Structure formats: structure tokens, C-alpha cells
């Protein structure tokens, strides 16, 4: 038992591990059942936004409701694209580079941002996001400005001796696997951090920064760290998106996109790690299902949001938690409490 892993007993952890493994295997087998390019595209987008939303959650649990997150995605996307396009660097290198540059900007913006808290933080973060997008417009020469950036190289094909070459242009399936692996990797890191001493310090600051600093937690330091981690993965998600979509426009990283990410997190529920995953999945896939409604489709999106707000105060994941608590309490009463 280490910090952040207090409650669950060994047995339940085992069930959890099996459940996650099963889910991941299912996701790996998915392309066997789905061959529609359109569906695969939807899944890929869901994966990309899942990374972004989960990394936003990392910032959120430290008590910082950021409205700039899409801008950091964009930062990663543009840096990666420009290096790959202008200098012919391989995307395998430029994608992490995109993450790092988003992180650097996040840290630079982060120090002044620690001067403000709560609602003030949210509003100032909004300006930071807007300034980043405006910056993309200023460097029109490299970013393509409002016309957009085209000709971004796709992921290069991979040759492993003894296996057929994986060509990312052949179909959506290689991309699907790439993003699935990337998502699993990023989420494992974010999950590990959240359930460590660092994650506990983040949550402690969010609950009471006064108490936190009285026990020696460096409020500013941990808040910047949360921004660094969150922005890094936003940059990675954005960079991945750039080499998948191969076209970028800066408007897709503006205020509304940041707000969208926030909606994913809030609708999913802020109480659990799975909130943003559930929120992103529901809010990307369900509206896609109702695409045939054409101009009426946004009502589905808005409708889900209102439904959640009125009937699920803790978000969709909160609903699961409620059911789970009921179920677990029922079990606990049956068996004597273990003293650990």
C-alpha cells in the first residue's frame, strides 16, 4: 500500500486489473469487427481527445480550471508539424518535441498564473490560450495562418524484420493502433502520477492551499508541475493529431476547443480518473451517431450536457461511483472488515 492506494483490498484490485486488461484487449480487437473508415476515424478522434481531456484533469485536480488547454494541443501540433515539414525531422522525434515545447510554454505561463486562484485563474488562463492562438497567426510564414498548414508528413512506415511493413497511409488501422498504444501509455503515466504522493499533493492544494503550505507543500511548485505534466500530454495529443490529419488550422485550437475539452471533463465527472475518458467517449461518439439530424445534431450534445447537470451532480462517472458505493457497501456489510 502506498500513498493514494488506501481503500481497495487485494481482491478487488485483482478484479479491476482483469477488467482493464479485458477492455484494452477488446479495444485491440476492435478493427476486426469494424472496417468502416468513418467509424475508425471517430474512434481515433476519441482517443486523441481522451489523452487531451485526461491531461486537462491533471491540471484540474490541482485546483486549476484551465480554459487554455486546446491552445497547448495546438502548440504541440504546430511545433511537431513545422519541424517535420521544414527540417524533415522524423515525426517519431517531433511528436515528443511537440510535447516538450507545450510543456515549456506551460511552465513559463504557469509561474505568473500561480499568482491567481480559482475563478481568476480560469479567466487569466483564457488569455494565455488566446495569446498562444494569436501567436500562431503572427508566425503566419510557418503556420500558414488562417489559410491553414498543409503537407504535414504522415507517420513514416515501420519495418520490423520478419514482419510486413506497416504503412500508415494504407488504411486507418495502423493509425488506430498507434493512437490506442499512445493513449494507453499516456493514461498509465497520468494514472500513476495521480495515485502517487504527487497526485495527493495536487488534490491537497485544491482542497486547501493554506493547510497544504502549512505542512510544507510548495503550492506554486506543485501547481506549475501539474501544468507542466498536463501541457506535455496535451502537446503530445496535438502533435499526434497533426500527423494524422495532415492539415492544421489555428481556429481548431481556440477558445471553443478549450471549452469543449472542459465540457468533456466536467460532463464525465471530476471525481474519478475515468471521468474524462467517459465524458470524451460519450460526447464524441453519441453526437456522431446522431449526425443524420444535421442542423438539429447540436441539440443532442447540449441535451446530454443538460441531462448530466440536472440529474448527475457528480457527472457521468459520478453516477457509476454512486452505484458502485451502494454495491460495495452491500458487500462490506456481509463480510467482516479487514484490518490492514
Amino acid at each position, binding site marked *: 500500500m502506498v500513498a493514494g492506494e488506501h481503500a481497495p483490498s487485494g481482491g478487488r484490485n485483482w478484479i479491476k486489473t482483469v477488467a482493464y486488461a479485458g477492455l484494452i484487449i477488446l479495444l485491440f480487437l476492435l478493427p476486426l469487427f469494424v472496417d468502416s473508415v468513418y467509424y475508425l476515424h471517430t474512434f481515433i478522434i476519441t482517443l486523441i481527445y481522451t489523452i487531451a481531456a485526461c491531461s486537462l484533469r491533471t491540471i484540474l485536480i490541482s485546483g486549476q*480550471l484551465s480554459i487554455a488547454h486546446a491552445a497547448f494541443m495546438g502548440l504541440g501540433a504546430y511545433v511537431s508539424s513545422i519541424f517535420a515539414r521544414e527540417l524533415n525531422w522524423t515525426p517519431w522525434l517531433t511528436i515528443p518535441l511537440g510535447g516538450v515545447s507545450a510543456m515549456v510554454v506551460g511552465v513559463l505561463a504557469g509561474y*505568473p498564473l500561480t*499568482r*491567481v*486562484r480559482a*475563478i*481568476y485563474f*480560469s*479567466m*487569466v488562463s*483564457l*488569455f*494565455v490560450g*488566446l*495569446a498562444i492562438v*494569436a*501567436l*500562431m*497567426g*503572427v508566425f*503566419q510564414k510557418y503556420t500558414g*495562418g*488562417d489559410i491553414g498548414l498543409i503537407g504535414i508528413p504522415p507517420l513514416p512506415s515501420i519495418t520490423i524484420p520478419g514482419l510486413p511493413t506497416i504503412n500508415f497511409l494504407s488504411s486507418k488501422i495502423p493509425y488506430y493502433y498507434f493512437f490506442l498504444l499512445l493513449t494507453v501509455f499516456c493514461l498509465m503515466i497520468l494514472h500513476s502520477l495521480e495515485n502517487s504522493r504527487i497526485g495527493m499533493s495536487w488534490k491537497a492544494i485544491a482542497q486547501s492551499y493554506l493547510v497544504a503550505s502549512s505542512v510544507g507543500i510548495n503550492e506554486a511548485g506543485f501547481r506549475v508541475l501539474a501544468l507542466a505534466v498536463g501541457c506535455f500530454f496535451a502537446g503530445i495529443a496535438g502533435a499526434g493529431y497533426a500527423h494524422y490529419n495532415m492539415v492544421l488550422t489555428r481556429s481548431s485550437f481556440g*477558445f*471553443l476547443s478549450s*471549452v469543449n475539452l*472542459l*465540457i468533456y471533463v*466536467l*460532463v464525465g465527472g*471530476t471525481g474519478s480518473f475515468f471521468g474524462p475518458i467517459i465524458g470524451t467517449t460519450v460526447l464524441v461518439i453519441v453526437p456522431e451517431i446522431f449526425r443524420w439530424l444535421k*442542423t*438539429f*445534431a*447540436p*441539440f443532442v*450534445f*447540449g*441535451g446530454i*450536457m*443538460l441531462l*448530466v*447537470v*440536472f440529474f448527475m*451532480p457528480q457527472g457521468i462517472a459520478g453516477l457509476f461511483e454512486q452505484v458502485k458505493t451502494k454495491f460495495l457497501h452491500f458487500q462490506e456489510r456481509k463480510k467482516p472488515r479487514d484490518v490492514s
Partner: protein
Amino acid sequence: MISDVAAQTVVNVLMLSSIYILVALGFALLLTVLGILNFAHAAIYMVGGYICYQLAVVVGINQWASLLISMIAVGLLGLFLERVFFRPFLKDMNRIVVVTLALIIILQATINVTVGSYIRRIPSFVPGVLRFSGVSVSGDRLATFVIGGVLLLAVILFIRKTKTGLQMLAISQDSDGAALQGIKTHRIFAVTTAIGCALAAVAGSLMGAILSLSPFMGDIMLVKAIEIVILAGIGSIGGVLIGGLILGALDATLPLFISGSATDLTGLCIIIILLLIRPQGLFGREV
């Protein structure tokens, strides 16, 4: 010619500032009195513009009457929104954020479905160009400034001189303390929302005559409203006027000197630097 450009710039600054302030004032009132961040405020501004358009162009009544009806209708819409969507979530920031964002999507979709997403224009309120001793300015722009100025004066007088206005200020300073004085807080919340929405509707209608209407015109205006409130400092109603003027001046004059997206960046940098020096804004109370 120089004086012509100068005069037009002045009118542009005043016109843009009036519109900004009309929207930002309502946004600020909701923030300080109800304590909510109403992201849907600029969508309400857009709806106000479309109601005026429908009445003036499709139904074909006098556009001044359309403006008035739009103002009243959106005020009533505000009463409805406050009662159904804001009041249950006043103390819960996460949920109010989701509700108001959902309202943006729903209001935009509603306009898209009923009117369509093509760009519309409301006919001029004061057609043509007015000439004052060799200087010519657009009638609509001047009218916007006059209407904006009159409305703002009215609202400020209302807040400073009436009992309801005083109660609004009291709630914005201490809402529990206000309840203990026997102030009917929910009634004040409703009045505040109605006033805020009505002001936004006027701004939307005027904007429809000067530029054009689109279901997404609120997106930029929302950002402007937040910028002004931050610049002014949360809790300062008077600061909104100054903040609006500053932003209006930046937006109307920067393009004369700097081109393209650099104007946005310059404006944003000015605001960010200002906030780093004074996190509570120009006239805000302690953070």
C-alpha cells in the same frame, strides 16, 4: 481628410466601446450579483440581434419598434433562464459552467434551425452619412454610441438611485448579509438577469445593423466581455465602463498601426501584463 479619419476613428472607438460595454455590463452584473460566470451571455446577445432582424425584416415592422420588442423579449428570456437554469446551481461552479455552455450550444442551434446560418443584416437605424462641419460619420455608428450611452446612463442611475439598485449592490458585496436585511434575494437575481439580457439584446441588434448577424457572432463577444470584466476587476461595475473604453480603443485603433493577427496579440499582451501587475484588475477588490 486627416480630420475625417480622426473623427471616424473616434466614432468607431465610441461605437465599439458602447457595444462592448452593453454586453460586458450584463455579464459583470451576473457575475457580481448572482456570482455566476454566464458563458451564455454573448449567445443571448446574438439571439437579441436575430429577434430584432426577424421583426424588422421578416415581419416587417418599424426597426425601432423591433429593437424595443427584442429588448423586452430577451429580458423575459432572461427571467426564464434565471429561474430554470441558473437558480438551481448558484453555489456550484462546475455545474453552472456546464449549464451556461450547454445554453450556448442550444441557443446557436435554435437560431441555426429557425433562421439559418447565412449572414443577415438589419437595415440601418439611421441611414446614410451625417456631416458636421466637413467631417462625415456613419449615422448608424453614431446612433449606436448615443443609444448605448443613454442606456448605460439609465442603468447606472437605476443602480445608484433606486432601492432595487441599492439592493443589487448590497448583494454583490455580501449576499448573506443582504438576506438578513430582508432583501428578497431571488427577486433581485431575476431583475438583474433581465436587465443584463435586455442590454445584450440591444447590443446584438445594433451590431446587426452596423456589421451583420451570424449564429456564431457571440463567440468573439464572449471573449471580449470576459476581457473587459477582468480588466475592470471583478466586482467593479464602474470599471466595466473604463475597461470597455480601453478595449474598444485598442480594437478600433490598433489595426491602423499593426496588421493582421499581431493586433490580437498586442491587445492580449497588454492585458496579460496588466494582470500580472494588478491581478485584481484596474478597479477590482483584493483577489
